[in-house]
């Protein structure tokens, strides 16, 4: 019976990145994916004729350019287009826009506050300084602070040196970023509520925290440290939807000789004498491999796919204590025409960017209070984009695809499972909000897909539908991610590795976990990593 060199459980972007790097190192790699398509949460699916849906992940920035380059993704069709603008609509009939042009941006802020307009440069400087500190850590394996191995000590030293290389002011700022709420952090720069809300949203997207929760300043950095072709912090659309990322990865993988099996759901990992030997599919088929890499989140991997007896108690306890919290949902909409927002001039670039309706910190935080109480937000926070304004491939001419990322949606409603009626109520809260700013919006809807944490978990397999495979709080970052002692992509089971967003440096379509895991695996196999280009310099 054939034994693969490596079996990757799950064909999400990290699984595919990992598979590509292993295959290119000369391994014979199989990816098994439960769905009939690959991509995990980064897919484009034609859910209604003519409309391509980015039905989970919907925008691109974090995906590491080193990976795009190593895996020749442009050759396989990947193209990323930057946003043109963005806005928060205000309740008084106005909006606050973000423009790419520095001076237009300042003048836009000055409409609300001259002071805030001139405070932006200092804010941008401070955020940029911190991004430059963190960026180089993304493509490195986190050191184990309890270890005395030369490599861990070396990495700790690297971290220490990087920190020591900062000025005292920067160090103080780093401490603030790791511990402050985004709301309090922004209070130190800006006076206008809507301007704060405009920035604060990056501090909450994907987390089960409100903008007033300490630690959300770091979450903002997580969203800022991406780039579009060297433009740090920029966000854009993948042409053809987010599926274009994983489609290119899959094509690259196949081109280098890799094998993908879709419709193949793993029931459990085959373990003999404490070593992973392969996987057993639902239905009983056994597939053998010299090593197994799980792209699934850490809870799914170790609480569902591995038997308890194979794992040490302390590891299991820590896996159970890992916080994966469903906090968001999606409403994806096919539209027969471009919605109009009377507040917005017709030629505004904002249509070609991200739009929001939460214009105050209080509204954002109250949306979170609903989540804490086990309810979807009555007045939800929306991150709404219409990618078809820049990407003509996703809908017929004149028609549009709209993606609404919605916070907050709890994993359970008042302690019980979501029902279809709940789902409809959730969708209505979103549509009602949009319709308030866009009269006639309902009439433009051709088709709609509503995804609560229930649907996301069922389809993509993300525990609780959490998009980051685990909260981005300090107790779950760096050497704590996913669990202390196992933050280097390995697990207590020999030959079983992790490569999903549950691992360092965390979620978003970044690919870094998949790549870092491949580097560790190849190190264990004493194979060359010369096909991995060095991390780009931060100069």
């Amino acid at each position, binding site marked *: 019976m054939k034994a693969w060199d490596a079996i990757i459980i799950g064909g999400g972007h990290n699984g595919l990145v990992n598979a590509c790097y292993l295959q290119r190192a000369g391994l014979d790699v199989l990816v098994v994916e439960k769905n009939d398509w690959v991509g995990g949460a980064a897919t484009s699916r034609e859910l209604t004729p003519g409309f391509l849906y980015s039905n989970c992940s919907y925008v691109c920035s974090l995906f590491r350019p080193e990976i795009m380059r190593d895996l020749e993704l442009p050759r396989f069709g990947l193209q990323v287009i930057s946003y043109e603008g963005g806005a928060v609509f205000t309740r008084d009939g106005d909006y606050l*826009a973000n423009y790419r*042009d520095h001076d237009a941006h300042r003048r836009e802020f000055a*409409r609300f506050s001259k002071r805030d307009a*001139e405070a932006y440069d200092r804010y941008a400087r401070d955020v*940029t300084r911190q991004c430059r500190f963190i960026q180089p850590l993304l493509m490195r394996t986190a050191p184990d602070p309890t270890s005395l191995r030369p490599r861990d000590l070396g990495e700790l030293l690297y971290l220490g040196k990087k920190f020591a290389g900062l000025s005292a002011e920067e160090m103080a700022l780093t401490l603030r970023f790791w511990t402050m709420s985004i709301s309090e952090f922004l209070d130190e720069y800006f006076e206008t509520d809507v301007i704060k809300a405009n920035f604060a949203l990056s501090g909450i997207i994907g987390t089960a925290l409100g903008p007033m929760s300490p630690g959300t300043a770091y979450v903002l950095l997580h969203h800022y440290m991406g780039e579009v072709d060297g433009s740090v912090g920029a966000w854009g659309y993948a042409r053809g939807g987010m599926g274009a990322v994983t489609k290119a990865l899959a094509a690259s993988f196949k081109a280098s000789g890799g094998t993908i099996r879709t419709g193949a759901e793993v029931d459990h990992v085959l373990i003999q004498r404490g070593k992973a030997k392969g996987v057993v599919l639902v239905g009983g088929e056994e597939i053998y491999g010299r090593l197994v890499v799980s792209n699934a989140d850490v809870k799914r991997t170790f609480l569902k796919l591995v038997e308890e007896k194979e794992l040490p108690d302390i590891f299991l306890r820590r896996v159970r204590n890992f916080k994966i919290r469903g906090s968001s949902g999606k409403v994806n909409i096919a539209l027969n025409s471009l919605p109009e927002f009377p507040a917005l001039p017709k030629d505004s670039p904002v249509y070609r960017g991200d739009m929001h309706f939460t214009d105050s910190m209080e509204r954002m935080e109250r949306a979170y209070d609903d989540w804490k109480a*086990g*309810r979807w937000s009555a*007045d939800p926070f929306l991150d709404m984009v219409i990618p078809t304004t820049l990407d003509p491939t996703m809908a017929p001419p004149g028609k549009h695809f709209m993606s609404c990322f919605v916070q907050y949606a709890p994993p359970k409603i*008042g302690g019980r499972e979501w029902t279809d009626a709940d789902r409809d*109520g959730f969708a209505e809260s979103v549509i009602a909000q949009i319709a308030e700013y866009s009269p006639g919006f309902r009439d433009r809807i051709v088709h709609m897909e509503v995804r609560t944490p229930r649907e996301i978990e069922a389809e993509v397999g993300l525990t609780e539908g959490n998009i980051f495979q685990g909260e981005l709080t300090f107790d779950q970052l760096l050497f704590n991610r996913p669990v202390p002692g196992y933050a280097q992509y390995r697990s207590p089971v020999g030959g079983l590795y992790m490569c999903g967003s549950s691992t360092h440096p965390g979620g978003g379509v970044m690919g870094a976990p998949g790549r870092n895991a491949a580097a560790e695996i190849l190190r264990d196999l004493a194979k060359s990593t010369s096909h991995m280009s060095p991390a780009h310099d931060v100069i």
Partner: protein
Amino acid sequence: MAQATRRKPVAKAAGATVSARIAAQSHFQTLRLGTPFQPRIDALAKTQDWYNWAGYRAPHSLWDEELEYFAIRSQAALFDISPMTKYRIEGPDAEALLNRVTLRDVTKLRPSRVHYTAWCDDKGFVLDDGTLFRLSQTRFRLCSQERHLPWLLDSAVGFDVKVEEETEAVAGLALQGPTSFAVLRDAGFAGIERLRIFDLADFPHGGGTVSISRTGFTGDLGYELFVPADKALSLWDRLMTSGELRGIRAIGYTALNRARLEAGLMVANADFTTAEHAIRADRLRMPDEIGLGFMIDLEKGHFNGRRAILEARAKRKLRHVLVGLEIDGNVPAEHAIVYHKKAQEVGLVSAAMWSPMAKRNIAIASLARPYGDTMVEDLWVEIYAMRELQYQKLMKRAKVVARPFINLDRRTANPPADF
């Protein structure tokens, strides 16, 4: 029922401020604003060679950058400085506030006088340099390259003073060159001859006033004029008419930039990086590191950065020095690396040119101490001159020289010469 019903967010009543705010939305349709003088400048812009000056469409040149430079040195040149950031600082404590914010002693700045100054953050790093106009006992105008409203407002806490940004409201012109005095006198600004260097006075214009100072950025005889935006065009016309026989010409930035370099003057974020824009901590500069140490007045009482500046001086923590260089040959050493003994990298040229007035190859450079400070011998610059798609690499000897590179008596002569 677990689920709360939707709380419809309450709309605030649309007031006058909201409608004003909404009316300003359309700015995004004009990414580069025109200044109040734009109709006149557009009419003269034969090269259509624009650049972005703080969000304004400003000319690099209007017809010929060489000849525009000579207009400064031989006749009178008119340059639009409206995009310069301007703050109005007014109130009983205005002097005290500015004394605390800036390096120089503002109590020594008499009403109707102007001085060149700079200001620092707590660490003694330069936030910007600029000119401070004392319009009256209690009213000042601060002109700068970068924007500082939050800094000024936060500095003003506890002072009885009002700080307002007035960049758009006030139009500015620089009239520079040997005939500039004659142009103004002929334009009817009676008493203009009494303005000595750094003096300032108000003159009637079009039912309002124009404030004219004998200041400039060229090292030449020259004046700067500030008027409310709605009086800008009539002022322009008045000067152009009276200057016709004195060779007045409108010019763009390239010409001005040459003149300022000959005068040995720095430009923030060209010759040094301002503290609020420095992302890399080693780019920060203290006044002593960019030749502004002369401004520091330790006797005047407390001012921002005083403690850090004193400490840096005492502990010899000053790491850089900004110097003027005279370089062999005539090839401008723009952005050339400076070496000691042709081997050790010790600094960088930030601005360079062949000076037509001095007939020397000049530059401003930032060097790592002790080079440029106590070690001034055996310095070299490596010039990469692109000629027909090839770099001609030149290693040229550089000599540290005093700035300004030119000294024109007419700049300070009283009464100003009538050419």
